[in-house]
């Protein structure tokens, strides 16, 4: 497969997954902000900006930290490269460049999504229609992934699409967990203590894991179990371990030249997430663990870029 084409497919899939994750984060943030009026308010509003490392850019454009402005910035701002608007735009733009290679259903899904996005009134998204908008983004992402899985030939296009999707998802899950953990548990000693049920429930809901938690643990919500679920539970499709099952699978199928550095790191990360023990992770510091994982995911992205996709 042409390197340029693989690059477009990889990023097309990442952008769509990113749009979905952004919608999840914003959806949960909106709920938390409505539930809570206390001191956590500001922390909750800051979380999406911390996760995407865009607080400075936000402050440049908005004086106050408030929900409508945050949604405007994270969902609709054309100048914010992490906004849902930008993600959908670039997903579609990348698809446009490779539409001859992806299936027409895939292209039509992304093109229709973008056309609809452009037609949605801004006031609706920042107002009462926010939840419906976030649901719509998630649905479009589900649709795209399903259409891709159901229509595309099993070859390099499929492999790079899967690689992009799950690398992005792993990155997002790690970031969400890290930011929330950071805010809620400033010190390791607090682990397992009585904490705001809503905060943890919201975290679980943001990755569609609330019901899964109940099913798997049949227990109250404890941070260590939440961490286990989101990091190591490979039956949970948004956990880091599950994402890396997919990353490894995709990497194993890709036939490259001089791609050992990329494959080595992917397999190493997979092994680390397969055999880690959650108690040990907590002892060593959850934040430290996640930071290392995030750094390695970033490095893996660079190595994939170098090995297959051409110079950046």
């Amino acid at each position, binding site marked *: 497969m042409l*390197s340029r084409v693989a690059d477009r497919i990889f990023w097309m899939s990442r952008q769509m997954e990113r749009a979905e994750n952004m919608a999840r984060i914003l959806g949960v943030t909106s709920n938390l902000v409505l539930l809570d009026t206390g001191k956590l308010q500001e922390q909750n509003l800051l979380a999406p900006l911390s996760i995407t490392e865009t607080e400075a850019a936000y402050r440049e454009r908005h004086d106050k930290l408030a929900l409508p402005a945050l949604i405007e910035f994270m969902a609709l701002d054309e100048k914010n490269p992490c906004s849902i608007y930008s993600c959908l735009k670039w997903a579609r733009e990348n698809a446009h*460049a490779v*539409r*001859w*290679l992806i299936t027409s259903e895939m*292209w*039509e899904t992304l093109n229709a999504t973008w056309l609809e996005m452009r037609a949605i009134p801004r006031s609706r998204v920042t107002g009462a229609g926010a939840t419906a908008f976030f649901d719509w983004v998630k649905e479009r992402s589900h649709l795209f992934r399903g259409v891709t899985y159901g229509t595309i030939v099993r070859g390099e296009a499929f492999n790079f699409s899967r690689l992009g999707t799950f690398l992005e998802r792993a990155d997002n899950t790690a970031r969400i967990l890290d930011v929330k953990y950071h805010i809620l548990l400033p010190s390791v000693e607090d682990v397992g203590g009585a904490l705001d049920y809503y905060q943890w429930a919201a975290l679980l809901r943001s990755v569609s894991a609330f019901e899964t938690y109940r099913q798997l643990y049949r227990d109250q919500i404890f941070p260590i179990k939440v961490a286990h679920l989101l990091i190591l539970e490979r039956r949970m499709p948004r956990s880091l371990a599950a994402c890396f099952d997919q990353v490894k699978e995709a990497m194993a199928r890709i036939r490259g030249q001089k791609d050992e550095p990329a494959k080595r790191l992917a397999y190493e990360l997979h092994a680390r997430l397969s055999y880690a023990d959650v108690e040990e992770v907590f002892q060593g510091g959850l934040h430290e663990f996640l930071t290392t994982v995030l750094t390695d995911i970033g490095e893996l992205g660079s190595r994939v870029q170098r090995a297959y996709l051409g110079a950046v």
Partner: protein
Amino acid sequence: MKRRHYDEMHGADGDVRAHFRALADWLAETPAERVAEKRREADLLFHRVGITFAVYGDDAGAERLIPFDTIPRVIPKAEWDAIVKGLRQRVTALNRFLHDVYHEQEILKAGVVPAEQVLTNEAYQVSMLGLDLPNRIYSHVSGVDLVRHEDGTYYVLEDNLRTPSGVSYMLENRKMMMRLFPELFARQHVHPVEHYPGLLLETLRAAAPPAVRDPVVAVLTPGQHNSAYFEHAFLAQQMGVELVEGGDLFVKEGFLHMRTTSGPQRVDVIYRRIDDAFLDPLAFRADSLLGVPGLLSVYRAGNVALANAIGTGVADDKSTYPYVPEMIRFYLGEEPLLQNVPTWQCKRPQDLELVLDKLHELVVKEVQGSGGYGMLIGPAAKKAEIEAFRARIKANPANYIAQPTLSLSTCPTFVEQGLAPRHVDLRPYVLSGKVMELVPGGLTRVALREGSLVVNSSQGGGTKDTWVVD
């Protein structure tokens, strides 16, 4: 003064012609609202599928649809067969001409075409001299524009031998018609055109360097911001080959390669949709970012094929056009089956005098112009426009040719007021490989403005499905 013109659907007596009968009956039986509803559906589908033409700027919203008219243009099989014979003859002669002017130049020596006309032409490429091409084919894909005069005779308006476009609309229009009006296809047998991409791939593979056993073909596009990008992508997809940009290709050890995820891969045939001047910055325009440095040397070594070949423009140039009937006689010893439009060459003093005298009646074109730009349609032009054009012709006569204003046939077309006759032309696509192939049909372009004779999409033209029926 109202001009006479040939009506594709109705005979002189006002009766519907036999080959339009089935369509006319269907139109009469089908409620207007249903047809209108289907037209809206077509618009929506085209938009959704992203079948767009025109400028694709930074704002994705700048994409425009090429207007699609739901009333097909119908051609009876016997008439089509005659067109095909004429096209085969014409394109054969044009390929012979191209081989000749880059080899022995017999036609120039015989004085049939003036040597200076060919050798000083901007599109004549010295780098092609003496280069032997597989099957001696230069124009692998030719789009010959035909129009009908008031008596119904087909005339060749121009031969497009460089990178003729529009075939994707022929295919998409058919797909759309079958989707919108399946019952129409049940009523009569319409000859299929869907096998065009397969024929194109065969043609391209036949152009490969003879030593290559299983040639790798790629479509070379200027990129996704090019106005015809949809078509480049569409054809690559339909043929199942790579769509490459200049940056994906490089020359190494005398061969052309693509950069792939598993290392370099050799390419044997390039169906290029970029102009000669941009193909190789080392050989042509140094500022071109679209091409591949060193491509020409690989081509000259016979290690890659280009379709169409470099330098075909010398044969489809408007100043060469008047000589095509003579070429047919010279190379094939046959009388031309398809007529040329009578053409005056302003570089000839006696022609120039006549043209300047009759500017208000004639169509004047730049010899290198295309896309409907840089032309004067005398009967439709204002006095001031005519005078401005007169000055330009006088300043550089050799740059202009003139033709009588053809009436162009009309075909019923949906416009705001309902069904109305609009002028059409026809572009069939001729594929030349080991054998010559055409699909029964082509692209019918329609001038949507009342009375307009300009069918180019860049000038507000639309397209129709083209049916060849038994």
